């Protein structure tokens, strides 16, 4: 426990930790000290002078954001002199500010507007001409309007410290200082938009959102990013049934203020012109749109006939659909179609993982653990590229808790910059690399081991044995690729009990039906069975859909409710941001097919299906109430998990790719860094 001191703020006696910053002490006691540059996640800057406070026996006003609390201090945050100082600071910040609030993107949610409203003077003594600089475009997603900038350095610090990129700096000096990008007139960076969201004013604006709408004209829907497996919360701004922006400025959710380019911008696939709008039937004249009722009847009849004839089904589920959909699909396959042939593209060896952890408690790391653990060991993954949020957590851990990072990878990674030790290995040499760190790791208080698809099967078991042998508490994250890769596995979309794996289904010459729900297995593979009736549910005419007999247009994650499970096993709720006319949710489609077939698979409402999941899926016994307030972590399985046939391989998506969705996101394709590459170190 830190030493406590007594001080007085605005006449109130307050106890605080010695050395705590006055601004924080005041906040914790419900006293607002206004601030622009101060940001609790990043280094201190003391650049804006908005937080001035009066301290008795100190001749001049002091900045509350860097002055530590000390015994006997008498502080005033609301005296006449402080109020005058704030007015002066704001008047000064407005010297060159264009005051173009009526057209500024930030108008209505601008910290400068709010501060002037609350603390500012009504008029300015400056009559001089304002210094003007033209607006600049630094990348397809980042624009900079220098006159609006108040030089708080938040963007610079967010990029340096939060992202580990360091793409922004400050050029010139004095009144003409301005933020500059790393390559003269353009940015080469993560294109994450963190700098834009953290900007208190409208100086940094987003290519996709700028001049689109006023903030109060949108509905704000908090949901979960549908791209990688990290499960960031993204708040979608919706206007006229269209998503116009994504951000996390309210810092809710597991990811605080973090989002990568995908969570912040790559929602544009929802309105891609090639989006399927109605069921399509393959005919001699190519694909013809047909009505839903016709399409469902065709699929149901085919399924029933094949089932009656004892034919062979293959069912491939999705890394992106909800837990409810995956659960319903698995039930549909096993009970409705009476087949064991169900699988999905597995991107991490979760079966071996749960098997290796069987019987152990408290071994699954959450995203918060990466921020809190004494040490994080990354094995066989380019974390900043493949799991941007997990990498952000580890960086924040170093910043705030002096956490240690270790990396055992086949190439350079951004984690090297902060790592206590980085070990380069050949593919397959991961275990030896980890072993070489044994003494260092043993000396850590506790450890989170995060590993990629190179660690599977026996190697995975050996890694867990290694963790056990360290004699310190160890938790693990088995990396998987997509927003519900973990859920697909947990919901049983796997070929257990002797079913065919994905590859085996594609290779089976006598398959009668291939049913693909939200996946693209034929992207790089051939379907052996020439007579198979292929049903595909998807958003787009993917390589797989192009081989289908019938294609059913599906709603995306942003267009439905339900739950998804992230890479750390945290279950979170989706919220429907927009309604779609043509497509239907996969759950509804499956429910309707079941109804057509006369099957009784239960009600196909997400909450009803989740109630069933709670009862029958181990580790998912969480209430809707729990889910409503935040993520609920799953528990590891207790008991052995049989090895499953099939190939396990990560797609190796970078920051700028997202599996089959990549090509339908104009934003992801527009940035110069796309498609990016793994193991290039810092990434620039």
């Amino acid at each position, binding site marked *: 426990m830190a030493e406590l001191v007594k001080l007085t703020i605005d006449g109130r006696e307050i106890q605080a930790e010695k050395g705590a910053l006055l601004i924080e002490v005041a906040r914790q006691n419900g006293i607002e000290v206004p601030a622009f540059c101060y940001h609790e996640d990043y280094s201190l800057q003391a650049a804006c002078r908005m937080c001035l406070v009066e301290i008795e026996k100190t001749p001049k006003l002091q900045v509350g954001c860097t002055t530590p609390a000390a015994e006997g201090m008498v502080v005033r945050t609301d005296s006449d002199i402080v109020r005058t100082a704030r007015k002066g600071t704001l008047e000064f910040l407005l010297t060159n500010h264009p005051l173009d609030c009526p057209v500024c993107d930030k108008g209505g949610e601008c910290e400068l507007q709010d501060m002037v409203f609350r603390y500012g003077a009504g008029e300015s003594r400056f009559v001089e001409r304002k210094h003007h600089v033209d607006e600049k475009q630094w990348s397809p997603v980042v624009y900079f309007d220098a006159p609006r900038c108040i030089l708080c350095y938040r963007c610079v610090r967010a990029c340096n410290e939060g992202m580990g990129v*360091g793409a922004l*700096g*400050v050029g*010139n000096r004095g009144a003409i200082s301005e933020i500059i990008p790393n390559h003269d007139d353009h940015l080469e960076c993560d294109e994450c938009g963190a700098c834009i969201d953290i900007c208190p004013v409208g100086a940094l604006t987003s290519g996709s959102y700028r001049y689109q709408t006023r903030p109060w004209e949108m509905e704000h829907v908090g949901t979960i990013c549908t791209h990688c497996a990290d499960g960031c919360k993204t708040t979608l701004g919706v206007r006229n049934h269209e998503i116009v922006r994504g951000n996390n400025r309210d810092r809710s959710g597991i990811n605080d203020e973090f989002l990568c380019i995908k969570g912040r911008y790559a929602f544009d696939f929802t309105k891609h012109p090639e989006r399927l709008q109605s069921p399509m039937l393959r005919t001699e004249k190519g694909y013809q749109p047909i009505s839903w009722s016709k399409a469902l009847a065709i699929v149901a009849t085919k399924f029933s006939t094949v089932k009656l004839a004892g034919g062979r089904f293959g069912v491939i589920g999705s890394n992106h659909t909800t837990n409810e959909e995956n659960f319903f699909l698995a039930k549909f396959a096993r009970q409705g179609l009476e087949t064991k042939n169900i699988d999905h593209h597995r991107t991490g060896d979760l079966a071996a993982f749960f098997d290796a952890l069987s019987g152990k408690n408290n071994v699954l790391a959450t995203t918060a653990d990466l921020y809190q653990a004494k040490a994080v060991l990354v094995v066989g993954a380019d974390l900043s590229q493949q799991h941007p949020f997990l990498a952000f957590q580890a960086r924040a851990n170093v910043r705030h808790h002096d956490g240690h990072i270790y990396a055992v990878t086949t190439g350079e990674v951004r984690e090297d910059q902060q790592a206590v030790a980085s070990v380069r290995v050949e593919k397959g040499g991961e275990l030896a690399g980890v072993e070489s760190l044994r003494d260092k790791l043993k000396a850590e208080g506790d450890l989170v081991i995060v590993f990629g698809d190179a660690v599977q099967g026996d190697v995975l078991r050996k890694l867990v044995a290694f963790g056990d042998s360290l004699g310190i508490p160890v938790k693990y994250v088995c990396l998987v690729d997509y927003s519900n890769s973990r859920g697909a596995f947990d919901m049983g979309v796997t070929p257990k009990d002797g079913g065919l794996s994905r590859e085996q289904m594609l290779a089976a010459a006598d398959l009668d039906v291939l049913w693909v729900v939200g996946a693209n297995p034929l992207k790089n593979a051939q379907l052996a069975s020439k007579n198979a009736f292929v049903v595909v549910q998807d958003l787009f005419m993917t390589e797989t859909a192009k081989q289908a007999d019938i294609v059913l247009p599906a709603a995306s994650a942003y267009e439905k409710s339900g739950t998804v499970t992230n890479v750390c096993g945290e279950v979170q709720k989706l919220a429907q941001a927009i309604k779609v006319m043509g497509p239907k949710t996969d759950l509804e489609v499956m429910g309707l097919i079941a109804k057509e077939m006369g099957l009784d698979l239960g009600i196909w409402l997400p909450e009803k299906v989740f109630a069933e999941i709670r009862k029958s899926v181990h580790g998912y016994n969480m209430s809707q109430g729990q889910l409503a307030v935040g993520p609920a972590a799953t528990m590891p399985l207790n008991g052995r998990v049989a090895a499953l046939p099939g190939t396990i391989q990560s797609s190796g998506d970078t920051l700028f790719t997202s599996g089959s969705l990549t090509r339908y996101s104009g934003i992801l394709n527009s940035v110069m860094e796309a498609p990016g590459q793994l193991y290039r170190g810092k990434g620039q």
Partner: protein
Amino acid sequence: MTFSPQLEQRFAKMLTRYPEGRTRSAVIPMLIYAQDEVGAITRDVIEEVAKRCKVTPVQVDEVVGYYSMLHRKPQGKFHVQVCTNISCLLVGGEELYEHAKKKLGVGHKETTADGQFSLEEVECMGACSWAPAVEINYDFHHHVTPEKLDQLIDGLRKAH
């Protein structure tokens, strides 16, 4: 990008002069010497200095923007810098600067058509005791009057 062998030698030595891991300390001297040889701080120079000092280009860019003696565009062969800060101002610095503008026919940060002279109004150069002060390239001139400035400029013109 490479520099002349002499400069390369100088840079190599420079980098050994700082404690381990502090190569960033060499950014300013490297920029100044590179500017003297290249004529200006070009984008290439920025990227090169960043690489050699193990910092990011934007960090070098910040330094270039901050220090007025670092120029992104080539200056005249003779760069005339007239101080108009307080000490010089009190004893005729501003008149001197106005005179220089007329004499050279160019303004602040401009270069004569023949590329011989460029002019810059500068802040304090630390020569207050001898105000008003003028610096031409690296040479200081003290107690400068308009007549003395004419002589200086004419002398340089003749000599070249």
